[in-house]
Protein backbone atom coordinates (compact mmCIF):
# COMPACT_ATOMS: atom_id res chain seq x y z
CA UNK A 1 0.00 0.00 0.00
CA UNK A 2 1.33 3.42 -0.94
CA UNK A 3 1.39 6.48 1.31
CA UNK A 4 -1.50 7.86 -0.78
CA UNK A 5 -3.60 4.72 -0.09
CA UNK A 6 -2.99 5.03 3.66
CA UNK A 7 -3.78 8.75 3.70
CA UNK A 8 -6.98 8.28 1.72
CA UNK A 9 -8.09 5.40 3.97
CA UNK A 10 -7.36 7.34 7.16
CA UNK A 11 -9.06 10.48 5.75
CA UNK A 12 -12.19 8.46 4.93
CA UNK A 13 -12.10 6.60 8.25
CA UNK A 14 -11.97 9.95 10.04
CA UNK A 15 -14.94 11.17 7.97
CA UNK A 16 -16.91 8.07 9.02
CA UNK A 17 -16.07 8.76 12.68
CA UNK A 18 -17.16 12.40 12.25
CA UNK A 19 -20.53 11.37 10.79
CA UNK A 20 -20.99 8.73 13.53
CA UNK A 21 -20.48 11.50 16.10
CA UNK A 22 -22.95 13.70 14.23
CA UNK A 23 -25.57 10.92 14.17
CA UNK A 24 -25.12 10.35 17.91
CA UNK A 25 -25.51 14.11 18.61
CA UNK A 26 -28.60 14.21 16.37
CA UNK A 27 -30.18 11.28 18.24
CA UNK A 28 -29.46 13.02 21.56
CA UNK A 29 -31.03 16.29 20.46
CA UNK A 30 -33.85 15.11 18.19
CA UNK A 31 -34.55 11.66 19.69
CA UNK A 32 -36.03 10.57 23.04
CA UNK A 33 -35.93 13.41 25.57
CA UNK A 34 -34.97 11.25 28.59
CA UNK A 35 -31.74 12.37 30.30
CA UNK A 36 -30.35 8.82 30.21
CA UNK A 37 -30.10 9.02 26.40
CA UNK A 38 -27.87 12.10 26.59
CA UNK A 39 -25.80 10.64 29.44
CA UNK A 40 -25.26 7.44 27.45
CA UNK A 41 -24.50 8.88 24.03
CA UNK A 42 -22.64 12.08 24.97
CA UNK A 43 -19.17 10.57 25.62
CA UNK A 44 -19.21 8.55 22.38
CA UNK A 45 -20.65 11.44 20.35
CA UNK A 46 -18.02 13.88 21.61
CA UNK A 47 -15.11 11.44 21.17
CA UNK A 48 -16.17 10.44 17.64
CA UNK A 49 -16.88 14.02 16.53
CA UNK A 50 -13.55 15.30 17.90
CA UNK A 51 -11.39 12.40 16.66
CA UNK A 52 -13.13 12.43 13.28
CA UNK A 53 -12.83 16.20 12.91
CA UNK A 54 -9.13 16.16 13.77
CA UNK A 55 -8.43 13.22 11.44
CA UNK A 56 -10.36 14.73 8.55
CA UNK A 57 -8.41 17.99 8.61
CA UNK A 58 -4.96 16.46 9.30
CA UNK A 59 -5.17 13.71 6.66
CA UNK A 60 -7.05 15.99 4.26
CA UNK A 61 -4.32 18.63 4.34
CA UNK A 62 -1.64 15.90 4.09
CA UNK A 63 -3.42 14.48 1.02
CA UNK A 64 -3.61 17.94 -0.58
CA UNK A 65 0.15 18.35 -0.08
CA UNK A 66 0.91 14.81 -1.30
CA UNK A 67 -1.14 14.78 -4.51
CA UNK A 68 0.18 16.66 -7.55
CA UNK A 69 -2.63 18.76 -8.99
CA UNK A 70 -4.19 19.69 -5.64
CA UNK A 71 -3.11 22.82 -3.78
CA UNK A 72 -4.23 24.09 -0.40
CA UNK A 73 -5.42 27.32 -2.05
CA UNK A 74 -7.72 25.53 -4.53
CA UNK A 75 -11.25 26.90 -4.16
CA UNK A 76 -12.84 23.56 -3.22
CA UNK A 77 -10.17 22.92 -0.56
CA UNK A 78 -10.57 26.40 0.95
CA UNK A 79 -14.37 25.84 0.95
CA UNK A 80 -13.82 22.51 2.75
CA UNK A 81 -11.66 24.17 5.41
CA UNK A 82 -14.27 26.91 5.96
CA UNK A 83 -17.06 24.29 6.24
CA UNK A 84 -14.91 22.28 8.65
CA UNK A 85 -14.41 25.40 10.82
CA UNK A 86 -18.15 26.14 10.83
CA UNK A 87 -19.06 22.55 11.74
CA UNK A 88 -16.32 22.28 14.36
CA UNK A 89 -17.36 25.56 15.99
CA UNK A 90 -20.95 24.44 16.31
CA UNK A 91 -19.99 20.92 17.44
CA UNK A 92 -17.60 22.29 20.04
CA UNK A 93 -20.34 24.50 21.52
CA UNK A 94 -22.82 21.63 21.63
CA UNK A 95 -20.29 19.23 23.16
CA UNK A 96 -19.42 21.80 25.85
CA UNK A 97 -23.11 22.34 26.66
CA UNK A 98 -23.76 18.58 26.81
CA UNK A 99 -20.81 18.09 29.21
CA UNK A 100 -22.60 20.29 31.75
CA UNK A 101 -25.25 17.56 32.07
CA UNK A 102 -29.00 17.37 31.61
CA UNK A 103 -30.96 16.24 28.57
CA UNK A 104 -29.59 17.55 25.27
CA UNK A 105 -33.01 18.66 23.92
CA UNK A 106 -33.24 21.15 26.80
CA UNK A 107 -30.02 22.95 25.76
CA UNK A 108 -30.66 26.39 24.29
CA UNK A 109 -30.11 26.30 20.53
CA UNK A 110 -29.28 22.57 20.49
CA UNK A 111 -31.42 21.91 17.41
CA UNK A 112 -29.83 24.82 15.55
CA UNK A 113 -26.33 23.62 16.45
CA UNK A 114 -27.07 20.09 15.21
CA UNK A 115 -28.56 21.52 12.01
CA UNK A 116 -25.41 23.61 11.39
CA UNK A 117 -23.23 20.55 12.05
CA UNK A 118 -25.33 18.41 9.70
CA UNK A 119 -25.49 21.02 6.94
CA UNK A 120 -21.75 21.77 7.07
CA UNK A 121 -20.94 18.03 7.03
CA UNK A 122 -23.30 17.42 4.11
CA UNK A 123 -21.78 20.32 2.13
CA UNK A 124 -18.29 19.07 3.05
CA UNK A 125 -19.08 15.63 1.61
CA UNK A 126 -20.58 17.16 -1.54
CA UNK A 127 -17.49 19.39 -1.89
CA UNK A 128 -15.12 16.41 -1.45
CA UNK A 129 -16.93 14.32 -4.07
CA UNK A 130 -17.83 16.94 -6.69
CA UNK A 131 -14.62 18.98 -6.18
CA UNK A 132 -16.03 22.11 -7.86
CA UNK A 133 -13.37 23.86 -9.93
CA UNK A 134 -10.83 21.00 -9.68
Amino acid at each position, binding site marked *: *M*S*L*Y*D*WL*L*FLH*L*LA*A*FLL*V*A*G*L*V*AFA*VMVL*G*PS*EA*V*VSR*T*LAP*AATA*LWNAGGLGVIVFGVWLAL*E*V*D*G*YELWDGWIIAAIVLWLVGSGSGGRLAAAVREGGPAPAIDGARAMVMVMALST*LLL*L*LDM*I*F*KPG*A
Partner: protein
Amino acid sequence: MVAVVRPDSWNLPLFVHVAGAMLLVGALVVVTVAMAAALRRGDGVEVLTRLAFRALLIGVIPAYVLMRVGAEWIASEENIPDELDWVGIGYIVADLGLLLTLITAVLAWRAARRGADGPGGAGRAAFVLAAVLIVAYGVALWAMATKPA
Protein backbone atom coordinates in the same frame (compact mmCIF):
# COMPACT_ATOMS: atom_id res chain seq x y z
CA MET B 1 0.79 10.84 -6.85
CA VAL B 2 -1.07 12.72 -9.58
CA ALA B 3 -4.68 13.82 -9.04
CA VAL B 4 -7.22 11.86 -11.09
CA VAL B 5 -10.53 13.59 -11.83
CA ARG B 6 -13.38 11.08 -12.19
CA PRO B 7 -16.11 11.61 -14.81
CA ASP B 8 -18.90 13.93 -13.59
CA SER B 9 -21.51 11.20 -14.09
CA TRP B 10 -19.92 9.13 -11.28
CA ASN B 11 -20.20 11.86 -8.65
CA LEU B 12 -23.89 11.60 -7.70
CA PRO B 13 -23.96 7.79 -7.35
CA LEU B 14 -20.70 7.96 -5.38
CA PHE B 15 -22.24 10.58 -3.10
CA VAL B 16 -25.33 8.41 -2.50
CA HIS B 17 -23.12 5.37 -1.79
CA VAL B 18 -20.74 7.15 0.59
CA ALA B 19 -23.48 9.12 2.40
CA GLY B 20 -25.48 5.91 2.90
CA ALA B 21 -22.42 4.06 4.21
CA MET B 22 -21.57 6.88 6.64
CA LEU B 23 -25.13 7.05 8.01
CA LEU B 24 -25.18 3.24 8.24
CA VAL B 25 -22.06 3.14 10.42
CA GLY B 26 -23.26 6.12 12.47
CA ALA B 27 -26.58 4.42 13.22
CA LEU B 28 -24.78 1.16 14.08
CA VAL B 29 -22.64 3.07 16.58
CA VAL B 30 -25.82 4.38 18.26
CA VAL B 31 -27.23 0.82 18.38
CA THR B 32 -24.00 -0.52 19.93
CA VAL B 33 -23.59 2.24 22.52
CA ALA B 34 -27.27 2.20 23.56
CA MET B 35 -27.40 -1.60 23.84
CA ALA B 36 -24.08 -1.73 25.74
CA ALA B 37 -25.45 0.78 28.26
CA ALA B 38 -28.73 -1.16 28.55
CA LEU B 39 -26.77 -4.37 29.23
CA ARG B 40 -25.08 -2.68 32.20
CA ARG B 41 -28.63 -2.46 33.67
CA GLY B 42 -28.44 0.99 35.19
CA ASP B 43 -31.41 3.36 34.99
CA GLY B 44 -33.31 3.75 31.73
CA VAL B 45 -32.80 0.17 30.53
CA GLU B 46 -36.14 0.19 28.74
CA VAL B 47 -35.50 3.53 27.02
CA LEU B 48 -32.03 2.48 25.83
CA THR B 49 -33.10 -0.93 24.53
CA ARG B 50 -35.98 0.69 22.64
CA LEU B 51 -33.58 3.32 21.28
CA ALA B 52 -31.24 0.58 19.97
CA PHE B 53 -34.14 -1.16 18.22
CA ARG B 54 -35.49 2.09 16.73
CA ALA B 55 -31.99 3.11 15.55
CA LEU B 56 -31.85 -0.19 13.65
CA LEU B 57 -35.27 0.29 12.08
CA ILE B 58 -35.17 4.02 11.35
CA GLY B 59 -31.41 4.42 10.88
CA VAL B 60 -29.50 1.29 9.90
CA ILE B 61 -31.93 -0.33 7.45
CA PRO B 62 -32.77 2.81 5.38
CA ALA B 63 -29.06 3.78 5.34
CA TYR B 64 -28.19 0.27 4.14
CA VAL B 65 -30.65 0.65 1.25
CA LEU B 66 -29.12 4.04 0.34
CA MET B 67 -25.58 2.58 0.48
CA ARG B 68 -26.52 -0.46 -1.60
CA VAL B 69 -28.48 1.51 -4.23
CA GLY B 70 -25.51 3.88 -4.55
CA ALA B 71 -23.13 0.91 -4.87
CA GLU B 72 -25.11 -0.67 -7.71
CA TRP B 73 -25.51 2.71 -9.40
CA ILE B 74 -21.79 3.57 -9.31
CA ALA B 75 -20.86 0.01 -10.35
CA SER B 76 -23.11 0.29 -13.41
CA GLU B 77 -21.63 3.70 -14.29
CA GLU B 78 -18.03 2.49 -13.92
CA ASN B 79 -18.55 -0.97 -15.51
CA ILE B 80 -16.32 -2.52 -12.85
CA PRO B 81 -15.66 -6.28 -13.23
CA ASP B 82 -17.01 -8.22 -10.21
CA GLU B 83 -13.86 -10.35 -9.94
CA LEU B 84 -11.72 -7.51 -8.58
CA ASP B 85 -10.81 -8.24 -4.93
CA TRP B 86 -11.99 -4.90 -3.56
CA VAL B 87 -15.34 -5.18 -5.34
CA GLY B 88 -15.71 -8.76 -4.04
CA ILE B 89 -14.95 -7.64 -0.47
CA GLY B 90 -17.59 -4.92 -0.84
CA TYR B 91 -20.25 -7.35 -2.06
CA ILE B 92 -19.45 -9.99 0.60
CA VAL B 93 -19.59 -7.44 3.42
CA ALA B 94 -22.79 -5.88 2.04
CA ASP B 95 -24.59 -9.21 1.51
CA LEU B 96 -23.57 -10.72 4.85
CA GLY B 97 -24.16 -7.30 6.41
CA LEU B 98 -27.80 -7.34 5.31
CA LEU B 99 -28.33 -10.80 6.80
CA LEU B 100 -26.64 -9.83 10.07
CA THR B 101 -28.59 -6.55 10.18
CA LEU B 102 -31.92 -8.35 9.87
CA ILE B 103 -30.93 -10.86 12.56
CA THR B 104 -29.78 -7.97 14.78
CA ALA B 105 -33.10 -6.19 14.25
CA VAL B 106 -35.08 -9.28 15.30
CA LEU B 107 -32.86 -9.75 18.36
CA ALA B 108 -33.17 -6.07 19.31
CA TRP B 109 -36.95 -6.29 18.92
CA ARG B 110 -37.02 -9.30 21.27
CA ALA B 111 -34.77 -7.42 23.71
CA ALA B 112 -37.03 -4.35 23.58
CA ARG B 113 -40.10 -6.50 24.33
CA ARG B 114 -38.53 -7.58 27.64
CA GLY B 115 -39.04 -4.02 28.91
CA ALA B 116 -37.71 -3.29 32.39
CA ASP B 117 -36.33 -6.83 32.75
CA GLY B 118 -33.33 -5.73 30.70
CA PRO B 119 -32.26 -6.75 27.20
CA GLY B 120 -31.06 -10.23 28.27
CA GLY B 121 -29.38 -12.70 25.92
CA ALA B 122 -31.10 -11.29 22.83
CA GLY B 123 -29.76 -7.84 23.66
CA ARG B 124 -26.27 -9.22 24.27
CA ALA B 125 -26.33 -10.98 20.89
CA ALA B 126 -27.65 -7.83 19.17
CA PHE B 127 -24.81 -5.82 20.73
CA VAL B 128 -22.17 -8.31 19.53
CA LEU B 129 -23.62 -8.46 16.00
CA ALA B 130 -23.80 -4.66 15.74
CA ALA B 131 -20.15 -4.43 16.83
CA VAL B 132 -19.17 -7.12 14.29
CA LEU B 133 -21.00 -5.15 11.58
CA ILE B 134 -19.03 -1.98 12.43
CA VAL B 135 -15.74 -3.90 12.12
CA ALA B 136 -16.87 -5.51 8.85
CA TYR B 137 -17.79 -2.14 7.36
CA GLY B 138 -14.37 -0.88 8.48
CA VAL B 139 -12.78 -3.65 6.39
CA ALA B 140 -15.02 -2.72 3.45
CA LEU B 141 -13.97 0.92 3.82
CA TRP B 142 -10.32 -0.14 3.72
CA ALA B 143 -10.98 -2.17 0.55
CA MET B 144 -12.90 0.67 -1.12
CA ALA B 145 -10.19 3.24 -0.26
CA THR B 146 -7.09 1.21 -1.12
CA LYS B 147 -8.57 -0.99 -3.89
CA PRO B 148 -6.35 -4.10 -3.55
CA ALA B 149 -5.99 -5.80 -6.97
